[in-house]
């Protein structure tokens, strides 16, 4: 079974008693001193190993990801991409290794991190409105066991406005299209007003218009100095959308700027034999000038906004 495609309630690996994210005292002192947004490194991962039952999902992963960039995580199914995000968020417990967000453990940086889960991880039949979902992103600020105020409602509406669906605020979420649902999730993340956004397949299953809107939003975030780490499924758009890429297949294959790291050799090592078909298709697509893609994207199906 592939934990990557499991539901959001991935059971944590059994802890053998040792907290794997206990970090040495020296680093902790340094972290509190340097915990400014100007830190160059958004995410640090050391020797991260996660296993599901007895099957390893992530093996000895070391990463250092720069702040202020759009970063893609790619790899085949079951490669541990979603698990990596969940390990950062503390949703799964690693067997070994630790994670630091802006130079401190996650639990001290919670308010600095926004999370956009996979769309399928949620039951969209739940009786709630788009505005309600976005407001959930403010719960950290509202405080536990307190009521949302009008100011919070305004903020949530503003976030919906930012993703272009303010008029759908009162709509029941099951009545939204896939692209609109994804925008609701993004609005919720925006409401968290984070410095680092972790997104799990934000472009999956959305139409071309929404895809462009999401990309515009990500670029705006980058312009404001925020960092985005996104699990991405579409190899064709990695080089175009992202600055930095992480190639993952249970072990780290490569991590670096997209120009130097997103190469056929690295892709081959990540995807193994499965890349043959992909490579040929990718090469065929890359041969056509990129102008074609824009033109094709501009022919909208009739009736689309």
């Amino acid at each position, binding site marked *: 079974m592939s934990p990557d495609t499991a539901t959001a309630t991935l059971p944590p690996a059994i802890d053998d008693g040792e907290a794997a994210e206990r970090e040495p005292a020296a680093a902790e002192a340094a972290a509190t001193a340097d915990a400014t947004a100007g830190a160059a490194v958004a995410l640090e991962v050391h020797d991260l190993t996660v296993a599901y039952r007895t099957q390893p999902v992530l093996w000895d992963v070391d990463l250092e990801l720069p702040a202020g960039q759009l970063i893609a995580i790619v790899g085949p199914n079951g490669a541990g991409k979603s698990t990596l995000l969940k390990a950062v968020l503390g*949703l799964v417990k690693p067997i070994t290794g630790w994670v630091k967000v802006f130079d401190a453990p996650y639990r001290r940086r919670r308010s600095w991190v926004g999370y956009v889960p996979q769309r399928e991880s*949620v039951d969209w039949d*739940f009786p709630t409105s788009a505005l309600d979902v976005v407001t959930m992103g403010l719960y950290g600020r509202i405080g536990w066991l307190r009521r949302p105020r009008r100011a919070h409602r305004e903020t949530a509406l503003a976030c919906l406005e930012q993703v272009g669906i303010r008029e759908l605020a009162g709509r*029941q979420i099951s009545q939204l299209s896939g692209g609109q649902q994804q925008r609701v999730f993004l609005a*919720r993340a925006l409401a968290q007003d984070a410095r680092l956004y972790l997104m799990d397949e934000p472009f999956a299953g959305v139409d071309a218009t929404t895809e462009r809107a999401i990309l515009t939003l990500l670029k705006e975030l980058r312009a404001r100095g925020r960092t985005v780490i996104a699990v991405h499924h579409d190899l064709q758009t990695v080089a175009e959308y992202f600055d930095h890429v992480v190639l993952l297949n249970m072990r780290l294959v490569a991590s670096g700027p997209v120009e130097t790291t997103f190469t056929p050799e690295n892709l081959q090592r990540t995807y193994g034999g499965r890349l043959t078909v992909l490579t040929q298709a990718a090469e065929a697509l890359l041969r056509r000038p990129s102008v074609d893609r824009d033109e094709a994207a501009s022919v909208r199906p009739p*009736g689309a906004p």
Partner: protein
Amino acid sequence: MELTFTVRHVLAGAALLGVVGGVLGSFALLRRQSLLGDALAHAALPGVCLGYLLTGAKTPLPLFAGALVAGLVGAFFILATVRWSRVKEDSAIGIVLSVFFGIGIVLLTHIQKLPAGNQSGLDKYLFGQAATLLADDVRLMAWLSAAVLAAVVLGYKELKLLSFDRAFAASLGMPVRAAEVGLTLLLVVAVVVGLRTVGVVLIVATLITPAAAARQWTDRLGWMMALAAAIGAASGIAGALASATVPRLPTGPAIVLAASAVLVVSLLFAPRRGMVWAKLRERRVAARIRRENLLKDLYRLGESAGGWGGFAPAPLLMGVRGQTALELSRSARPLVQRGLLERAGDALRLTARGSDEAARVVRKHRLWELYLTRRLELARDHVHRDAEAMEHALTDAAVADLEHQLGYPTVDPHGRPIPPPPAGRTATAAGGEART
């Protein structure tokens, strides 16, 4: 009916049960834990028996406490089994349900063989008997209900988030494991409140059925819970009263039937979601499609005959789509009434207005075919089926947009002419209703 103590207790007990069951049942329903509630209810039986064995008391508190503890143990067992072994959730629920109940039955039959055991009244917990509720029972139920409702009101937004998106809740720092245990605890309390009234076997229906009924009427969680509480209370009272007045009618089944009746009515007749309305809508749309197809068929026949002046005989029209005479006349009649068709005996012909209308439909069809062949590069002989469906769904705005994009074409992929837009309408691109 005189409001004797008994009746008052019955009403109070049933109402409390309904309210608490409806509220907690809403969560169970949405979290897909309906049958977990069933397992917890069955698991309560050994707890009740143990409570009796350990204290010998006839007061409700130790029995309720026993039920609570047993319910929690059962919940833990299910959780542990699913989390730490390969046994799946449905099996785990079935195991706890039947084994705990079996243990309960062993204890129950054992108690009944004891000297004072026959008066224990424990067998009332199987099917429920509201008429035996005492003031003490009702008071305890009231306290428990108040505590449960207070907890839900206090933690409403947290419980809502937890049920909707557990991973996100955890990322915000909510202690999700503890919160889930808390919610399970509330569920067990809701079960315990209803135990004496409905009995262990059927209590799942008092949790799930009102909530499922309420869901059909509203899309807001708050309203859903309130409505579930109301339905639960109403069916509780109705069932309990029926059981008290009709001889040999146990309370549990009576309440369940009342709630189920409300559910059936809700499923069929709730506004918008109701199955009856949905079926009617479907029929209306299907009829409209059949009428538009008839206009289109006449148009095409006229096209190939070189003009639209002639009457098309019924058998010819029936042959186009393999319709029966009855189906044909059913589609034709409203069109005749609206002045779009003329009838001469069996045969039909388009009026001037009718051919305008037909042209509209044909236009949509052929524009869509062109779009498919030009932009999506589909083969000419692959596009007809798709267009047959799309022609009924395209709005006027969408069509105008389509035309604009294709550059106002005059001929479709098969070489047939595309009818021009009706006079008076300009072809400007406009926002459509289609979803993004």
